């Protein structure tokens, strides 16, 4: 324990910092306008210290887990003053993919961060999730780290398809930051700035100790695994080597395919998030989120490979789809050393509809992989996402869409000593002409089972009954029905 702060002060201040992060998240979700944030909760909020280390995070979805520190590092170089807010979405300087707008503000002590997935950022297709982008520019407006002035905000929202909604969502993000500023100031006034700073140090050190202790309890060893993502022209391999050594873990992606001309590329920040997610599942799943938890984990990948892409590679599907596969391949390597679950559905089944009048985006849950001691849950988001389904009543009141079916897909989970979870079937009918984009995975390759368990069934996307490729962007006409059958999870252990 630190000798400058009493343990109790530490726990009191730690609880206060977590409340600040959570309260920011609540304000953002409750006052925002796009379904992505308000219904699906595709957003995260966090409190960082003066050194740019993450101290407390309100977690809604894991893909933001490891990717925020890079955003703060990028913004620190701008030299913000207290009360100022910076914005960015550039995946190559602190962002993830362009729809995730990150705001970073300077508080009385450190930084507050919010990241939210906006429904449209002005890419070549509505919802800014084009299936066939080749460069980052095609995916939307790129915002390198910069001060968020009224002018920057206006210029950005005017470049998007629904400026009113974007303005509303950014206002919601800004109110979360104003709140964080106020709360940090109150906390420093009440507890003393030095005490709060000392508590931040100790909270970081505490989670590092916890995770080191958990890693040390795992057997040392080294293992490799390989899997693929389904690019338009064929499968692209991802290879990783994991190593447990004492109280540290190293994960390296040497042998992974080079970045390519599609949009499944990942910036390293997203790759790190996926690796941190796996380590967290295998070590301390209940620990409050703090950057210290990831200090014992080193993630490396050759520059210019699929999972450490360099500009101007397109990345929009890296955040949702490649990140899912990184989780699978890292779990597969660890499974040779420690007990680990079979692969889950391995995709977020991104579905976007839109025209000049509306943009609607959703992701669809599927089967979770079975664990060594339990069946995989049915019909859930399995890895880097955990967003809510938008109610059919909310969709139909607001968009020219009708939900025709949402049910489990029986038998899609792999058999085994423990069964993989089942995927789901979801059907949406469009009521006016619009564009459709689908970014999905595990259509050509099944989610693998583990330890003799069967694979889960691969997913399918159908348009008016006709099977479609894993990625597509095309025109729809009023009355068309899109049916998505999501993959099942892999089974664990040979079926009896």
């Amino acid at each position: 324990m630190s000798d400058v702060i009493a343990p109790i002060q530490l726990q009191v201040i730690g609880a206060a910092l977590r409340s600040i992060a959570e309260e920011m998240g609540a304000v953002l979700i409750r006052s925002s306008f796009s379904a992505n944030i308000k219904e699906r909760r595709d957003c995260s909020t966090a409190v960082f210290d003066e050194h740019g280390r993450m101290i407390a995070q309100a977690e809604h979805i894991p893909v933001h887990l490891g990717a925020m520190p890079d955003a703060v590092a990028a913004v620190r170089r701008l030299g913000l003053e207290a009360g100022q807010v910076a914005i960015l979405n550039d995946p190559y300087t602190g962002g993830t993919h362009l729809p995730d707008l990150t705001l970073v503000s300077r508080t009385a002590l450190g930084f507050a961060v919010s990241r939210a997935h906006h429904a449209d950022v002005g890419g070549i297709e509505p919802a800014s999730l084009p299936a066939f982008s080749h460069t980052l520019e095609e995916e939307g407006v790129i915002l390198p780290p910069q001060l968020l002035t009224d002018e920057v905000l206006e210029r950005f929202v005017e470049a998007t398809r629904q400026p009113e909604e974007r303005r509303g969502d950014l206002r919601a993000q800004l109110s979360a930051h104003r709140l964080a500023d106020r709360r940090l100031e109150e906390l420093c006034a009440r507890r003393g700035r030095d005490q709060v700073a000392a508590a931040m140090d100790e909270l970081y050190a505490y989670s590092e100790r916890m995770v080191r202790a958990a890693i040390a309890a795992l057997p040392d060893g080294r293992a490799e695994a390989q899997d693929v993502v389904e690019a338009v022209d064929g499968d692209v391999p991802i290879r990783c080597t994991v190593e447990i050594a004492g109280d540290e873990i190293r994960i390296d992606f040497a042998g992974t395919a080079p970045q390519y001309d599609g949009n499944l590329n990942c910036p390293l920040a997203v790759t790190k998030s996926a690796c941190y997610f796996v380590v967290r599942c295998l070590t301390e799943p209940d620990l409050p989120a703090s950057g210290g938890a990831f200090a014992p984990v080193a993630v490396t990948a050759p520059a210019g490979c699929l999972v450490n892409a360099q500009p101007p590679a397109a990345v929009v599907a890296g955040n949702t789809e490649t990140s899912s596969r990184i989780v699978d391949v890292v779990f597969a390597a660890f499974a040779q050393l420690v007990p680990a679950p079979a692969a889950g559905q391995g995709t977020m089944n991104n579905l976007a509809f839109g025209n000049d009048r509306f943009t609607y985006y959703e992701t669809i849950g599927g089967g979770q992989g079975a664990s060594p001691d339990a069946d995989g849950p049915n019909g859930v988001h399995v890895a880097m996402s955990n967003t809510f389904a938008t109610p059919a009543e909310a969709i139909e009141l607001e968009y020219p869409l009708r939900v025709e079916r949402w049910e489990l897909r029986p038998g899609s989970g792999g058999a085994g000593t423990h069964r993989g979870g089942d995927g789901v079937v979801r059907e949406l009918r469009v009521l006016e002409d619009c564009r459709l984009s689908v970014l999905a995975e595990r259509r050509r390759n099944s989610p693998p089972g583990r330890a003799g368990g069967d694979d889960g069934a691969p997913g399918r996307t159908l348009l008016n009954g006709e099977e479609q490729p894993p990625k597509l962007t095309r025109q729809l006409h009023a009355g068309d029905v899109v049916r998505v059958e999501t993959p099942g999870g892999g089974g664990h252990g040979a079926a009896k």
Partner: protein
Amino acid sequence: MAILGVDVGGTFTDAVLVEEGRIRTAKVPTAPRQEESVLAAARAVGADATELERFAHGTTVATNALLERRGARTAYVGNAGFEQLLHLRRQTRAHLYRLSAQHPEPLVPLERCFGVRGRLGPEGELEPLELDDLPELDGAEAVAVCLLFAFRDPSHERAVATELRRRHPGVHVVASHEVASEFREYERASTTTADAYLAPVTVRYLRALVAAAAEAGLPEPVVMLSSGGVLPAGEAAEHPARLLISGPAGGVVGAGLVTRGAGFEHAIAFDMGGTSTDVCLLPGGRAERVSEREIGGLPIRLPSVDVHTVGAGGGSLVRRDAGGALRVGPESAGADPGPACYGRGGGPTVTDANLLLGRLPEALPGGLVLDRDAAAAALAEIDPAAVVDVVNAEMLRALRVVSVERGHDPREFALVAYGGAGPLHACALAEELGMEAVLVPAAAGVLSALGLAAGDERRDRVVSHVRPLAAVDELPPDGEADLRYRGQSFELPVPLGSGLEERFHRAHEERYGYADRDREVELVAVRTADVARGPEVELPSGEPKRASGPALVELDGSTLWIPPGWEGVRDGFSWVVTRE
């Protein structure tokens, strides 16, 4: 005329009898058949020998049946294509990092989830209803019916429910518009299903209780609802999903009574028991209500007092984790073996820490002598002051959730402390939050029962709109409107009356830091309630007393700890503790 309140808890059943400014209390062990404990408690407090104006009751029958999955064999009928809604929920997983964690099992298994063709959309019928689709019920005792857009047009649901009732007269049928006519199908379906699932059990219990009361010469009981209002037992049984936080609601009503009785305007209720703690904001001395809460992992979309619960209390176990941090709860020593100081081999708890700090008497009322050596041995090298600080940090977080995080400054509130452990911790918490006064009722250990006795009779109604506020012609004069900017998903409740739209803008600004007067305002729902005031409860005044901290004051079912620098005055029914 006297009024009687009987509150059933997990370990004890409490009774309070108020008669002409005198108050009597009693505690009896809770028996497996709750109606027996209720009657036993009523007799113990002398109610059978008194003419009663009201017999009020707080029950855990519905809550326990839900948490322990002892409800009826239930079927579910939804739209074809949406049969499995209860199993799909909102597609989120149960734990972000424990990948095999399962949500609590839905109340209806897949094989009893059925679909019926026929579909309504936001503008009306899209496809006619096919009553021929209705299933055989596979021996179900209850059926929940939830069809899309029934909150706007209940015609399909009504037809289905009527047909099911005709075909299966012995089966309890509930349609979603009858219990929670609100927007968002999963939450509505979950509420309707819980209501159907709990009905047979709750009806059996309340019937038995009414019969037993009549036999004992007591009036028909009124039952406390989650909303903080009461209804006659027969009516309460119609929709048992309304009873899920009956007991805590009683406590909150009691805290309001105490607040107003002591002449305070705003208060925060703080009920710290053995395994959990409930806190609730009482602006103007009355509880705020919310329209949805989660119970046992299931969303219940019904009005309830806005109680926030944390899993720590006096009996919470204390340990040190691998990173060296002190942890309190959520595991509890329970009533048996209880804290280490009960001398029955229990582990170290918050109660043990309080004992070692000299904040508990040597023996509990009822005669249990507390074993200091056992407490010291169990806590070993852990500093008892640190234990109290850590549990207080949890309590502070809960108090902040209901005050600061909702835009209220706790310094304007009094802290009403009750429950077995509340009055032990209250002054330290008030100090941290800058609160001026702590209010501790003399009957701190049985305040819930007192609150039951005082509850208003209350019938809540909701009408769903989901349309522009400007398009709505007439609104009732009293009640609340759920409003939002068009395009948002969360509503703010605003009291009905003139200037509604402007008051919404202001409420939004206060809550979220901005208002947008150019944006269309949408009316999602209107909530009204018929309220008949409960009986006037005349609280007894004890002898005026005074105590300067450090001091221990023994109360009925609880102990008040006044730390140094604080001073308590017993004035009327309650102790008022303030900084010197």
